[in-house]
């Protein structure tokens, strides 16, 4: 008989630079634990099959689909969610660029887009348009703001290369 209590529980998760205590079945998805146990609801459910990218988080800096990742798979890796992208109340240049380029409408894809964009610029600070398209093609925006997201990531890349004081 199915019984969620028959699985072993996970009691600690490193999220956004903090060790968080919890008591959750290790078979649960990282997405559900972030949203429902840790109240980090910026990471979204969009499809549950890794096709839309709304649940994108970073695991040790690598963009990952939280809907397809079980809690026990995370292990000791560091989780970064959209809530951890801002630092000390200051927006990340990618977040600022999204606002400036008006790169959102309903905003539901925005968390995943920004997390994926931040990860891309960390590994490739000067991506070409084709490289951005390649890296971001797994993230869906049903409002169709793709061209603006491209522009926002290019703008953020410029800012990161020559930051204004």
């Amino acid at each position: 008989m199915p019984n969620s209590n028959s699985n072993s529980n996970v009691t600690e998760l490193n999220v956004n630079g903090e060790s968080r205590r919890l008591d959750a079945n290790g078979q649960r998805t990282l997405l559900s634990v972030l949203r429902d146990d840790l109240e980090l609801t910026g990471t979204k459910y969009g499809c549950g099959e890794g096709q839309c990218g709304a649940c994108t988080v970073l695991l040790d800096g690598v963009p990952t689909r939280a809907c397809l990742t079980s809690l026990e798979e995370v292990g000791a890796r560091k989780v970064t969610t959209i809530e951890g992208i801002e630092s000390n109340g200051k927006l990340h240049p990618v977040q600022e660029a999204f606002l400036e380029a008006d790169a959102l409408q309903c905003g539901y894809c925005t968390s995943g887009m920004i997390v994926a964009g931040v990860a891309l610029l960390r590994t490739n600070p000067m991506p070409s348009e084709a490289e951005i398209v390649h890296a971001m093609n797994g993230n869906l925006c049903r409002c169709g703001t793709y061209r603006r997201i491209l522009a926002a990531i290019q703008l953020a890349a410029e800012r990161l290369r020559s930051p204004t004081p």
Partner: protein
Amino acid sequence: MNEIALFEPERYELSAAPLYQFDLTLELNRRRFFEVVGCGLAVLLLVESDEAQESGFGRRGFRGGQRPMQIGAWLHVAEDDAVTVFTGKAEVGQNIRTSLAQAVAEELRTPVQKVRMLMADTERTPFDMGTFGSRSTPDMGRQLARVGAAAREALLDLAAEHFAIAAADRGRLQAADGKITHAGTAIGYGQLTKGQQLVKSVAAELALVPADKWAVAGMSVSKVDGREFVTGRHKYASDISRPGMLYGKVFRPAAFEATLESLDLGDAQAVEGVVAFRDGDFVGLAAPDELTAERALEAIHATWKTKPQPSSEELFAYLRDNTSQGGGGGGGRFGGRNVGSIEDGLAAADHQLKQTYTVAYIAHAPLEPRAAVAEWADGRLTVWTGTQRPFGVRGELAQAFGLAEDRVRVIVPDTGSGYGGKHSGEMAVEAARIARAAGKPVKLVWTREEEFTWAYFRPAGVIDVASGVRKDGTLIAWEFTNYNSGGSSINSPYEVPNQRIAFRPTKSPLRQGSYRALAATANTFARETHIDELAGAVGMDPLEFRRANLKDDRLRAVMEAAADAFGWGARKDEAGHGRGIAIGTEKGSYVATCAEVRANGNGALQVVRVAAAFECGAVVNPLHLKNQVEGAIVMGLGGALHEEIKFADGRISNPAFSGYRVPRFRDVPPIEVVLVNRQDLPSAGAGETPIIAIAPAIGNAIFAATGTRLRSLPLVPKGLG
């Protein structure tokens, strides 16, 4: 689902309004209002019932021979200068929160940052029919501008008292930047309302700032709460959490119209923490977390009785064979037109052409699936949900549970898009049923598969066109019959002396309903493809042919603007490339779209670039308008090229993004948008019409590139390759 669905295409706008009315003129309501919002000045906009009805506010019965008045919107100026505007409209990504705030700020002469919009909460905001039909900007925008103007006048009256100025000298007061100044001394709006509980109502038409004098409206104001979204802090309905909340699931039928033969809930109920129940034909459960809920759902055993269902293979024959009564050429709510004689027109033509066009069912696929959090307390029900019709959903809940409407509160947080797909409240009713059975608050978020299966679809359709043209390119006969998809934009904007245009409703194999621009996409696709075919038949350039048959100045203006921006006649296409143009008008706005495609010969197709011109009267926010036009074109690209719901045996065959291809980064070409700003004309809505011309523009470009004429949406799966 052969019976007519609750929300049929193009008919939802006729929904009757509930009788509920929040009347601030009653002392009790007044006190309650100020208890909630604090002291200050409240300004109510009273609208007459006929206006209310036209502008989407529903109607009330006439009483005692008086013309009934009801509140269209209200606004509150607080002691700390904060302005709160109450409107029943919902934000679903169209940025109406920003543009309505601009409309108020313009007239109230206060910074837009000071204006807070309290939206779509049935206990806090006045009744509103819903956020659809491109009515928010022309109706609510104008009403809120009037409320802002009335508040400004009331504040000027207060300032005249404050500065002890005679009525004749009131003109010396200056209202600007949230303050009123007299002879070098300024007082803030909030200060003027200190300690007061003032209610002013305004019914008369006030003079509004003309669009060419706008200082706040008309500007590219950023999304007012954009920071909430880029930080992940905004709480959508699916993010709401309540103390003790459980996670709900619905046990869905094995097929459309299947009925339960047997049900065993024993294993599901044995899972720790799970409440599983049957309520009539509804089977639901609640669990302490999503995984437990999923496992309990898998532990339900049932057998279903199914009945034969049509499949997508036979869809178009089915639609023709199941035409119902109604519709026809008489105009009215179905559209349609009957002038001259089609037979005479065809007989006099040098070329005749008969063709059939089809469009598939497509899904809205909003990235936030339907979601609701329901909480019962003291016989009252509160539901947070993403919907375009908060008051309509309140009505559905009241009816489902036999409650008075004032026992139900629906709160709509800014929603993860709708596109016409979130008009109904089934997720709210389901969440409330599960919450009632569990005795705790319940969150229900539809899975993507549920969203692709149990929501409703944009109607599929079959369109027959028969036409006649003289060899000089003059259209003389136009017969146009639409089966099932609807009457929006069914009438031709071209001048034709003999026309017979009709919409024929049919039974629909799938549940269907509203979709961005309704049937205007289908009708514009058929018309603009056929027009291209006629241009070819008489050997004319497609743009020239349209010029020869089009008198509508506004449509001509966008057509020329798009053609100029695209460089229609300026350069020769490379081998394998082709260009197409299409135009259309719907809901008071006008669009022309040009597309260039590349076909590489082995079936692969790329849209290389798009240019579009759009006109919707005076532009309220150019930044967000451009974003809307681009977004509509991208969404239209999906329906044009790939999107198609397939079904057989009462099931959807491709209920996932892996089987239903929506546009991605890779599919989207550079899009140039030209806004034609007509400041001399009232602003029309803009979220819908820009979607209608992209599919025929691409189809016509494919013909130019390959010589293959495609007459079905989506174009590519059945065309190239």
